[in-house]
């Protein structure tokens, strides 16, 4: 019972349990810890690792700008096509005019040449 022990006895026991537990850490965990240590050792003193974020951030911003530009362009061209479609459909001349476009172009060229 803990109640029967002095505070120092309790602390000593807790420390012993912790020390034994640390000694029993498995090989795989130790291997990962060694790996982490080596990564840390390759960190330059006094240098922030955040510099890596600057080019990455710039690259991401550029990519985002391109995507937004393309979307806007796409929207504009889509909007234009839709307007043209409406114009064609609602034209007084009707669809026959557009089906004979080649003929009208030839006629225009012929009249210009003569």
């Amino acid at each position, binding site marked *: 019972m*803990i109640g029967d022990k002095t505070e120092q006895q309790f*602390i000593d026991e807790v*420390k012993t349990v*912790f020390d034994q*537990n640390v000694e029993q850490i498995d090989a795989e965990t130790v291997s990962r810890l060694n790996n*982490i240590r080596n990564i840390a050792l390759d960190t330059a*003193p*006094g240098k922030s690792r955040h510099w890596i974020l600057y080019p990455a951030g710039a690259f991401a911003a550029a990519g985002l700008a391109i995507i937004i530009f393309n979307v806007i362009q796409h929207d504009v061209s889509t909007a234009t096509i839709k307007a043209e479609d409406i114009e064609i459909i609602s034209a007084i001349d009707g669809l026959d005019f557009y089906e004979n476009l080649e003929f009208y172009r030839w006629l225009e060229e012929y009249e210009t040449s003569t």
Partner: protein
Amino acid sequence: MQYDVLRTYTTSTRERPLEQRQELDQFLGSVQKRAFRMAEIATGNREDAFDILQDAMCRFVEKYSTRNFAEWMPLFHTVLQNRIRDWYRREVVRNRFRVWFGQSADEQDTNSLENLADGRGRSPEQQLQSRQGMEVLDQAIRQLPVRQQQAFMLRVFEGMDVTQTAKAMSCTTGSVKTHYSRAIHTLREKLDGHWP
């Protein structure tokens, strides 16, 4: 002049003087297991503990490796404890989101000693006999407020005195005494009947 420029250049990354690298390697090697276990106890999550330790080691090497060797231990623990505190802050935010999305805090609570004993169908005595003694202690420590955890682990596990602990925790010695005293009192209460 040229030598100074060359020396400045060679102190970066892998070209750091071999002697200093060896000292750092020895120091980090000597603290890594205990630091990992402390982070694991604090978080209750193995992978989070690895992340915290890596972050703490990198930060320590980056910021403090040029400092006097005698300062390394308290400085390393200062960095480690700060990382653990950051983890707690993030956890608080995550838990708020969990509550918002309908999971109650009770459903999340798997930390109580009762749950541990019931979940495995063993009495606390059997747990202790089968090398699980630390698990009972883990759970009890994890239930403490973070500042009490830190004070307890630094004082008991690392054997730091009150002043060193205060430096590592970035608080006053009075606060350390209060946190430590409360932690001991709570642990004795919680472990009573679960401890050999």
